[in-house]
């Protein structure tokens, strides 16, 4: 059975405080030193020394008189000096000097960017997949006939990859004007055959980019690859549920030489803290 003596003196926190040396105040010239003792979180005794500078200010008589007024209202019980409940010394702040020019430019750019971003999301060319109206597409002349011959372009979106649609697509997807699910279309059951029957266009000049970071967007890829030549389309694979990029993308170039150059330059290129891996896309038919 534990005796009272074992626990007695230590158990009461009130007693602990009694053990502390009393605070002392020393005034020397115009400095006041206040020494206090307390316990920190680890029950160790700490000594707190606060030094105050005593300032004497000469003020007009009226102000000096007001200094002596008694407090009233809700402050009637306050001790002399600021009450910590109502007066708090805030964190240091500095005045930030700005020049109007910077500010305006930044704001203008901001607005411009916002508008562009908005346009990006909303407008997409059906022919070349860039952000302008289909009607205004610069490649309309060249690509439109090609596109109509490959009707069922939308289907491409669903297959993650540069999958060319079967030649049979035209008569099915377009003519009736009625939507036919891909699985119901003619040739749906002959998948392998139609895959093999691709036109050479896509495979030949499709570049596969892997090891992309999560924050990559289509626009980033556009910026990255467009210096090498005209891009037909960019496909950035995204997770179905989260919408986050999966880390790889396919870029279709207009010309083979340009795609070659892009691979040459960008393979092993450090982008967004990752090293890009850029290579020719393998024809999807050969994937196991």
């Amino acid at each position, binding site marked *: 059975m534990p005796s009272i003596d074992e626990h007695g003196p230590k158990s009461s926190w009130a007693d602990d405080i009694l053990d502390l040396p009393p605070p002392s105040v020393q005034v020397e010239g115009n400095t006041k030193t206040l020494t206090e003792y307390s316990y920190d979180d680890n029950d160790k005794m700490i000594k707190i020394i606060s030094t105050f500078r005593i300032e004497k200010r000469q003020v007009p008589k*009226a102000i000096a008189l007001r200094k002596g007024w008694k*407090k009233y*209202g809700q402050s*009637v019980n*306050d001790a002399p000096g600021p009450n910590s409940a109502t*007066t708090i*010394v805030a964190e240091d702040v*500095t*005045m*930030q000097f700005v020049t109007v020019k910077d500010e305006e430019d930044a704001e203008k750019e901001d607005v411009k960017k916002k508008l562009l971003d908005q346009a990006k999301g909303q407008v997409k060319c059906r022919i070349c997949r860039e952000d302008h109206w289909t009607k205004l597409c610069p490649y309309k002349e060249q690509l439109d006939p090609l596109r109509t011959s490959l009707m069922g372009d939308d289907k491409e979106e669903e297959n993650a990859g540069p999958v060319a649609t079967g030649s049979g697509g035209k008569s099915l997807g377009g003519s009736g004007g009625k939507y036919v699910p891909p699985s119901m279309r003619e040739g749906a059951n002959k998948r392998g055959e139609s895959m093999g029957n691709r036109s050479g266009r896509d495979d030949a000049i499709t570049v596969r980019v892997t090891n992309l970071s999560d924050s990559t967007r289509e626009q980033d890829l556009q910026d990255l690859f467009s210096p090498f030549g005209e891009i037909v389309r960019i496909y950035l694979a995204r997770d179905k549920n989260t919408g986050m990029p999966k880390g790889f993308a396919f870029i279709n170039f207009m010309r083979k030489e340009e795609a070659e150059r892009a691979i040459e330059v960008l393979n092993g290129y450090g982008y967004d803290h990752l090293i890009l891996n850029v290579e020719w896309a393998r024809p999807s038919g050969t994937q196991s």
Partner: protein
Amino acid sequence: MKPLMLHGHERSITQIKYNADGDLLFTASKDQTPNVWFSVNGERLGTFDGHQGAVWSIDVSYDSNRMVSGAADRSVKVWDVSTGVCISSVKAKSSIRGVSFSYSGSLIAYTTDKMMGQESEVRITDIRERQDVEDSPMMRMPITPHMMKGLSVLWGSLDTAIVTGHEDGAIVKWDVRTGKNLDRRCEHSGQIDDMQLNHDGSLLITASKDTTARLWDLETFEPMKKYKTERPVKSAAISPLLDTCPYVVLGGGQEAMEVTTTSTREGKFDARFFHLVFEEEFGRVKGHFGPINSLAFHPSGKGYASGGEDGYIRVHSFDDAYYQYKFDY
């Protein structure tokens, strides 16, 4: 600079004012008790208990002995600053939006709200007579129907005229002797939330909801300068140091009702410093986490205080950087 944060109010601050010597800071908020503080260390001298509604406006007499407050409880109260006692109370028929002491300290002008079938009015009362019972102003000037209700009021031109700021952005000058409307200017397109004079009473600055503040010559009533921001301006003050630091400070930010939908960074709750003459912004001070409702320069020009929708008053004293800043022109 290390600002002092004064937390004596439970609701958003409506107006703050230094007395003429700058040792006292008077603050009013939507809770019912105006406070007075020593500006040097932030010590609270006291509170003025007695109002039963949001206190919209306060003013201090030139000798700092009297404080007047106008509140939504339809009363104007005059207080003794040394004891916190209410000396007289003037009842009106609708809530009081603006109050102002004349230079002499014996007259007060106040504007009443347009509500409950009452038209908005500008009234002048002599506070030397006790008027506890009913409202019998010396002079009442109804704001004619074509003008929107008056919000803020100031005395100008050696107590011969008063100026009111209106909901439609107009400012109007009234002759105190005849009660006639001397001049009306409408440059702002939004409600005028605050009007302040500079230290010698020759310049007037108006802060408006139309996101600008304007500087006026009080005597000629000509618009002089315009300070543009992108958020509603709730308050503006002119630095008393016209020779060395000819600046104005603007406070404001987003509408209070929209604050919860945006972050502090987007809300732009900074106090913004503009050059008085060149109308260009050069500095910002952060701190509040709600729009700034009222600003006041210390009469010495060495600091300023701001009161925000967040209920805090921040008292700043400028660093050397402020005085050393050379405006690039």
